[in-house]
């Protein structure tokens, strides 16, 4: 019994090895003249792949990348220390930039290109990190299910009028943590906690799923309003799945706090790694990310807002209109995130 089955399985298992032999990547051969730049990225979008491909085509510098959740990448860089192969570190969240900097994993650089292109508020004064794209945490609501006038602010989600009508994803999610951190920075921990308690009290269901799930729940009427990043709704409206498009059509979008501090925005960004071995290439990549061509790809491929002025938006982003954004310093989000999680936990926002 054994030999036959074992043999058959062994063959089935070994066949792919032969395939591998022909398929094995040979980066060192390709990375000839201009060298490489090694990117550790907490972002995971096809848009980034396209941007890196463009960069390689323009400069001849090969981009090697490792994508993983931001905090895990930080742990990895800490463990690797001076031997870390990372040249550039990129995070999907402004808090991540702060944590990278606090852990001493970034080095300050001077670049006239970056300093000219990126507004001062969106880069570290010392040149340790630079923001490259922007997203807003907005309120989505069921059209016809709730009066939009009732949900024009983040505070309104905590109001008694919305009891049993609010959906949110887990508080562990970094987008929620950054929003809460911003509220702590702006209004202080007591008010932030009271707000989180109010929202949690209004939950139609326990927090679950990701942003898209909140949109679906709103469209289905399981709740009337939810907090999501703006681009998820745009993406659903353009989805190849007809049921996604139908879902998106039932949902409206509000930029909150337009008469107050402005809608919460969060940034993706990056910097040169502390122990970069290809520092010149790393700076070249960062400068490319701030170039008009690359900046145009963030809206085009990912429906994120660019950070450089004058870059064209997609019709979908233009349709959202101008909005007032909260202009807190980016570092505030990183600084207050641990406290944000502790307060969320106390508020019962799971």
């Amino acid at each position, binding site marked *: *019994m*054994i030999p036959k*089955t*074992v043999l058959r*399985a062994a063959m*089935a*298992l*070994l066949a*792919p*090895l032969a*395939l*591998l032999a022909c*398929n094995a*990547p040979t*980066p060192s051969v390709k990375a000839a003249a201009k060298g490489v730049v090694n990117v550790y990225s907490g972002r*995971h*979008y*096809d848009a980034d792949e396209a941007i890196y491909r463009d960069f390689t085509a323009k400069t001849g510098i090969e981009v090697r990348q*490792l*994508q*993983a*959740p931001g*905090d*895990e990448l930080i*742990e*990895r860089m*800490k*463990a*690797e*220390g001076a*031997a*870390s*192969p990372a040249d550039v570190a990129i995070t999907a969240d402004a808090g991540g930039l702060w944590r990278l900097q606090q852990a001493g994993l970034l080095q300050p650089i001077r670049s006239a290109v970056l300093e000219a292109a990126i507004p001062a508020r969106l880069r570290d004064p010392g040149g340790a990190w630079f923001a490259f794209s922007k997203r807003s945490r907005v309120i989505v609501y069921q059209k016809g299910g709730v009066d939009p006038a009732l949900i024009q602010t983040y505070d309104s989600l905590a109001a008694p009028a919305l009891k049993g009508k609010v959906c949110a994803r887990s508080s*562990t999610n*970094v987008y929620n943590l950054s929003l809460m951190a911003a509220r702590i920075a702006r209004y202080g921990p007591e008010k932030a906690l009271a707000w989180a308690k109010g929202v949690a009290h209004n939950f139609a*269901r*326990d*927090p*679950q*799923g*990701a942003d*898209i*799930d909140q949109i*679906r*729940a709103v*469209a*289905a009427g399981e709740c009337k309003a939810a907090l999501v990043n703006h681009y998820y709704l745009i993406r659903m409206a353009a*989805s*190849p*799945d007809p*049921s996604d498009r139908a*879902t998106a059509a039932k949902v409206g979008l509000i930029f909150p706090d337009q008469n107050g501090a402005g809608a919460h925005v969060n940034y993706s960004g990056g910097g040169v790694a502390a122990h970069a071995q290809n520092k010149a290439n790393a700076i070249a990549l960062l400068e490319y990310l701030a170039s008009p061509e690359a900046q145009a790809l963030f809206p085009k491929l990912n429906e994120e807002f660019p950070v450089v002025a004058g870059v064209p938006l997609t019709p979908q982003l233009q349709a959202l209109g101008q909005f007032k954004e909260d202009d807190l310093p980016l570092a505030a989000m990183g600084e207050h*995130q*641990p406290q*944000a*999680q*502790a307060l969320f*936990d*106390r508020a019962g926002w*799971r």
Partner: protein
Amino acid sequence: MAIEALSATPPRAPPTPLRLGVWGPQVLAALATFACAAPAAAVMIQALIAPRAGGGDAGRFWIDSVAGTLALMIAGGGVAIALGIAAAWLVAMCRFPGRPIFEWLLVLPLALPVYVLAYAYGGIAGPGGPSPLRVAGPSGAAFVYALGLYPYIYLAARAAFVSQSACVLEAARTLGARPWRAFWAVALPAARPAIVAGAALALMEIAADYGAASYYGATTITTGVFRAWFSRGDPALAMQLAATLLIAAALALAAERRARGRAAYGAARWRALPRYRLPLLAALGAALSCGLLAALGAILPLAWLARSALLAPPGAIAALAPALSHSLMLAIGGGGATLLLSAIVALAARAGGRAGQAALLAAASGYAAPGAVIALGALAIAASLRGLGLIGGLTGAVAIAALIWTYAARFAAAGAQPIEAGLTRITPAISGAAKTLGAGAFRRALAVELPLAAPGAFAAALIVFVEILKELPATLILRPFDFDTLAVKANEYASDDRLIQAAAPSLLIALVGVLPIVLLSRGLSRARAGGP
């Protein structure tokens, strides 16, 4: 002539390697213990020296997390155990329409990672999905655990039922026991060790799962580890939680070993088993319930994934070729290393003694630990090795080696179990005969025990292959540059809510996993002592 042959052979002394015969197994067991426990130990030590963050609610946090995990184990694990045993009994002991197909169809959920099941049911039975029934919240997590993990119990219980002594069952029947009574009074108690072993795997998977628990917003020890470490910046609290898991797994295993004691189970059976012929209605009911289970556990989610994958832009599947080859490479390479470690653990456990116990407990705690914790431990070890100047950064071969070690530490328990079960085929009489002929422990292991245990090892290889294929958190943290696997791609898209793009890699994981799993199922269903 016989006398001549005897006199021509010099009197057999135990093979010379001095005291290796005595110390060899001990040393190997110690090495295996180290390999399984070192990453977890490293991360604990690191956390102990980390400064404590504030936050006065640590106790509450710990209680909530433990309670959440226990609830999921009871609900998800309990249903999985019931489903697994029931399905195994029907398929092994009864005749009904479609039985030969269900025999392997019921194993298929094992090819789907539970986090993929969670995403699929998020689409099927989430808001706006086609299902009228909602799968949501922590009970949604329990639902996918039950469906995704019952095959562990099903496989183990079925193998046990199939290899039971027909004589015992016939004796029960002669004494007037109806099938139900034969099941409760004879078959189930005899299959207990196998069922407990399968259930232990399922329960440890539930404890260590991050993907499905976080998707359904369940508060568990594993999600708590992430929440404490990364969101609250409190590694010490994270490690208290992880330690809870490791210690609980080790204690549970020790308790099970003690309860089992030295009782010998599973008398070998030498002839085919008479299956109960079910009355028409019961037969139809059996076919329907097996069909429903297979549909919910595998067919429906697979169909949903296929539908989503078809909506993806053309070329999306072809673009997965490198990820596919990386997945296969890791599953084969990592599988080989894990199998080796599993074999050592199983042999050490069989040899008994403190060393064997330690190896077994270390392996069990590795399996119950969240993959990310073991991976962070491997990072910490890599950092110390780098401090000693032994290795550089985690690139290329070093990263792969760290990853493979993590797989081995994580999954040695899953492999050790079938190997150990295979080793029980080696009766004391056989080992005794080898001993009488002068074979030392090593020689007995190589020449007698390993060949007899080969089917168990084969089953272990298949399980470990599929486990690594599905593994996500450690692969994410430790892989080298430009080295995506199918699981990594699936997660990359799913974590960005691009579920259509996530479908193709998820489907590929399932398709690659199906063949080994069906082979596993076939191998186990033929595991009768007198079988062909």
